[in-house]
């Protein structure tokens, strides 16, 4: 695969983007108004994720009731048709457990858990299609679904993946790029530079870390705006309906 030209001398990537361009980001909130408290659908390029949030509710087992704050539980299911090659994935796969734990721990901090003691917030994530940046899309979907459910959060958690090709950072990698170059996924709270989520799986020269992080943070702020637009659009729609009645 490495024979493929990921970044042409003219500065174009395999899907025709420049180094600092995001893929198409589309999101919807309140997609499943009857089946759960909050839901969202996120598309980042060809990666498609549905997220549903139940709660805060009474936990089914006593062990999940924490008197200090809400417990956040993430269930991850990746559809067997989500990749080109059909493959059944088990939930106990280490990669899945790791992503699940990462999401749980990230949102445990970003949600104002202390406002909901002795409750459980259950988050179901369904991955319909994956084409790179899976963890980022999932985190974005969870943020939107939590907002839709009306769970108090400090701010949006917006996520993006960024890779490094030779010396050039490439923003928002697709599946092909992700196979070949190292990927850094970051999640930022609101419009700050605080990293709530951080995952780098392959080698990256230390001296390029700063520039890579810089572009990634700028991208998360952009993603935050895009998500915010969607939330506001939905909010306006709802309030106009209320005004009519």
């Amino acid at each position, binding site marked *: 695969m490495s024979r493929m030209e990921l970044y042409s001398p003219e500065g174009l990537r395999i899907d025709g983007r420049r180094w600092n361009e995001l893929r198409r980001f589309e999101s919807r909130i309140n997609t499943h108004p009857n089946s759960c408290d909050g839901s969202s659908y996120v598309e980042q390029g060809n990666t498609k994720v549905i997220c549903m949030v139940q709660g805060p509710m009474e936990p089914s087992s006593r062990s999940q009731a924490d008197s200090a704050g809400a417990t956040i539980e993430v269930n991850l299911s990746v559809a067997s048709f989500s990749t080109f090659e059909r493959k059944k994935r088990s939930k106990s796969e280490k990669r899945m457990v790791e992503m699940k734990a990462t999401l749980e721990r*990230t949102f445990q*901090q970003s949600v104002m858990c202390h406002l909901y003691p002795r409750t459980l917030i259950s988050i179901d994530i369904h991955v319909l299609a994956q084409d790179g940046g899976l963890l980022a899309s999932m985190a974005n979907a969870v943020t939107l679904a939590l907002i839709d459910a009306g769970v108090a959060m400090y701010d949006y958690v917006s996520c993006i993946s960024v890779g490094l090709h030779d010396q050039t950072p490439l923003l928002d990698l697709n599946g092909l790029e992700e196979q070949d170059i190292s990927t*850094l996924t970051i999640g930022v709270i*609101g419009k700050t530079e605080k*990293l709530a989520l951080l*995952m780098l799986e392959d080698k990256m020269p230390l001296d390029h*870390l700063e520039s890579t992080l810089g572009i990634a943070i700028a991208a998360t702020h952009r993603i935050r705006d895009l998500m915010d637009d969607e939330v506001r659009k939905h909010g306006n729609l709802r309030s106009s309906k209320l005004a009519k009645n």
Partner: protein
Amino acid sequence: MSRSVDVSTNERAYFIEGLKAGIRLNGRRFDEIRYPHNIHLSKEEYGYVELEWGKNKISVRVSSYIRKPFEDRPFEGIFNINCEINSMASAKFENGKNSDEEVLISRIIEKSIRRSNSLDLESLCIIAGEKVWNITVDLNFLNYDGNFIDIGCFGVMLALQHFKKPDISIINGGEDIIVHDINEREPQPLSILHVPVCLTYCFYNITNQQEVNIKGESTSDDIYLLDCDYKEDLLKSGSIIITLNKNREIIQLSKNGGIPIDASLLVDLALGSIKVVDELTDLMKKLIKDHEQQRFDELNLKLLQVGADR
């Protein structure tokens, strides 16, 4: 459910006050690690290492055998890391049940060493598509005192450098192989491309105002401790694991929850870690070299050397 003991509020307050005054309860500096000690490199067996790091104790065994390679990768040997954490180490780990924490520990060690290609898999190939070496590392944690990831990674890398596989000759024009007994021919060390070193930073928010921390601009309130012990680990409000090697490459970065970290601080931590990484890599190198020398002297291998020292 984990059966770890919760720390009392008094103890927590005492600890935080200490941090505010710039003092850790164990007397170390904030960026000081506990150096490994009591390192035992087996003389009888290649690739068996026992070491202690603070009160942590691990044993690592590397073993090898010959097998058929995977069909999609005929030129590559096979390398696995088996991470065994049971309740012997600490009551917080349960036998036979993989908690999230255990999975994260083994996953990060695996990512640091296996995925980063620190072991050259192609050098493990004997006959393409037919015979390759399978290298298995068994990592057993014997006692827990915080920070399993750093010590595990150090132990595995030390054991891999200590390990030697039997020499092999290919006969009948690539049809058959002879595996030479280790007493017959000097066994071959593995080819290691780079040595990853994991460092875990735990962080503490001493103001106890989460909202300020998440939304605020000032970062002076956060304290970062390198290589936490058992108690510090219980009190942490988050941690970040940085894996680096001597070539100034970041192998792996992961932050699993905990209070958010400022991007510039992350860069500072990574740059600051280089010194510790160099120290640990050199320590490993020295240990292996001393061990080799000792073995060389004891077995009087000089007798076997042909050629004049010029």
